[in-house]
């Protein structure tokens, strides 16, 4: 039985390497300079790329970050430094609730709020959908890392006559900054792969999407559309896009997690 549990672990870890390896082989083969610089070509023509999806994903993620991180961060500061009692538990409850909402339901929400109101699909609708998904994690991350700052630092600043806001801004947040930044990176990496909320908010676009007001192609949605299409050349593009997406997500994860791990081994543990 003991050996069996080891086998389970090895299989789980093996799956990660299998997925990585398979994407590397399939996607790496069809990855070329064109992939990063060209628009998709009509079906049947070779040499298309996904430049518009890369830029679209970047724009959507930027909007998401601008919406989700400030709200989550400030609310996290409130929870860690100010709130107490019933209101604090209410915020925690609501955060858990929002965090548990399936991503497709967030998509419906963004659709009814933005797409149905403005009567068209747009980059910012997609960005807002992902932004809402970022809020709960940003909040939890902020609260967790601010709470990990030793109380002595807080008291030291207060003893020197700093006001509470000054203590937070110049002592507590800087002390926790490594954790905060890595937490936000993890948060971004998580929503970067989200497809469901973009399906009917950012929709898709075969061409460049100027500004923020038009539907845009994004990497995950294009992977889905290409993979479910009947054309082998689109399948190859899907593999390449999948490889790029997975590489970025895993790199951010590895970087952020090692920053968090090293920060903690030096200071608090």
């Amino acid at each position, binding site marked *: 039985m003991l050996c069996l549990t080891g086998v389970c672990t090895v299989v789980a870890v093996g799956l990660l390497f299998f997925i990585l390896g398979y994407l590397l082989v399939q996607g790496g083969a069809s990855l070329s300079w064109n992939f990063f610089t060209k628009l998709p070509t009509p079906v049947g023509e070779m040499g298309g790329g996904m430049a518009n999806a890369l830029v679209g994903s970047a724009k959507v993620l930027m909007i998401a970050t601008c919406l989700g991180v400030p709200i989550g961060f400030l609310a996290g*500061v409130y929870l860690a*430094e100010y709130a107490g009692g019933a209101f604090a538990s209410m915020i925690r409850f609501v955060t858990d609730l929002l965090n548990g909402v399936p991503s497709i*339901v967030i998509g*419906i929400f963004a659709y009814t709020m933005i797409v149905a109101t403005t009567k068209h699909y747009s980059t910012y609708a997609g960005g807002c959908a992902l932004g809402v998904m970022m809020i709960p994690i940003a909040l939890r991350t902020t609260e967790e890392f601010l709470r990990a700052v030793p109380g002595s630092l807080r008291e030291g600043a207060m003893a020197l006559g700093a006001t509470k*806001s000054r203590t937070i801004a110049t002592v507590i947040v800087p002390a926790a900054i490594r954790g905060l930044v890595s937490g936000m990176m993890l948060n971004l990496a998580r929503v970067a792969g989200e*497809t469901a909320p973009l399906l009917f908010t950012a*929709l898709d676009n075969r061409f460049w999407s100027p500004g923020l007001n038009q539907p845009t192609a994004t990497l995950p949605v294009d992977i889905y559309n290409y993979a479910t299409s009947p054309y082998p050349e689109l399948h190859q593009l899907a593999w390449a896009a*999948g490889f790029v997406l997975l590489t970025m997500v895993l790199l951010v994860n590895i970087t952020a997690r090692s920053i968090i791990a090293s920060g903690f081994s030096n200071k608090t543990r």
Partner: protein
Amino acid sequence: MASSATTAAPARPQRRASFVQRFFSGDSLSYALTFLAAAVLIAITALLVYELWSRSALSREKFGFHFLVTSTWNPVTENFGALPFIFGTVVTSALALLIAVPFGVGAAIFLAELAPPKLSDGMTFLIELLAAVPSVIFGLIGIFVLVPALLVVVPPIKDALGDHAPFFFSGPFYGVSILAAGVVLSIMIAPFIISVSREVLLAVPKDLREAALALGATRWETTWQVVVPHARRGIMGSIFLALARSLGETMAVTMVVGNNPHIVTSLLASGYSIAAVIANEFAEASGMQSSALIELGLVLFVLTIALNGAARLLILATGAKGASR
């Protein structure tokens, strides 16, 4: 005693700074700002619930509770029932749990009880990376690797069973199926079960292990009869968490489940799920169909929220750290 009484009373300032002064010195401003952010968070969540409720009114009023128990899905006659989707969601998730729970708990036991700490940390790191893989990538692997693999593996098993095939393993098999969706989901949720269960197991007090070993129990008996039962509520919690995630999982299921809006008895047949039908039809839907899809979203929302709540309570009950995630 006397001295503590005198120090406890702080020296009151002669005159409090006016509200305007305090506000612009930053303290009240920062309080107001952070409070506002928290209020926005609550407002967004309230709005989300309100939107789901009000936008599904059309469908709720027309179909009432029949929506949940009828199985027609006909956009032409505007007749909608959610049963095939609820059924598909529940069956794929149940299948995923059936595979992922023994597997995940096994791996968690290995990581918490047997592996040397360094190895355990390294492996857990990799398993958490597996949890970070986007679901659309699992869908991609599902379509192009898992489904062809199942097409090779399943027919011989079916032939071997012949007429003795149980009802859930019969009928034609085209690859895309409830079985494929269940397998993909199980791979996606296993990392959650593993990492949460591991933390719960690590939180079991050392004395219990030592006492059991001192009484002459073997390593396996200690683990299986002492440590795991002590952590059972936390492990249940991790399973609920995984279940909530698999119910709401959209892309990977949509890509391999076959998208067939009928109730099927065989795992080899294609099915559908709530999230998948929303993903497929919402962009083109309007009127009653749109409302029915939003009501499906509401059903999904209620299901996952209930499960998440139960999971959190269970994990809290075992007092493990990491329950907040």
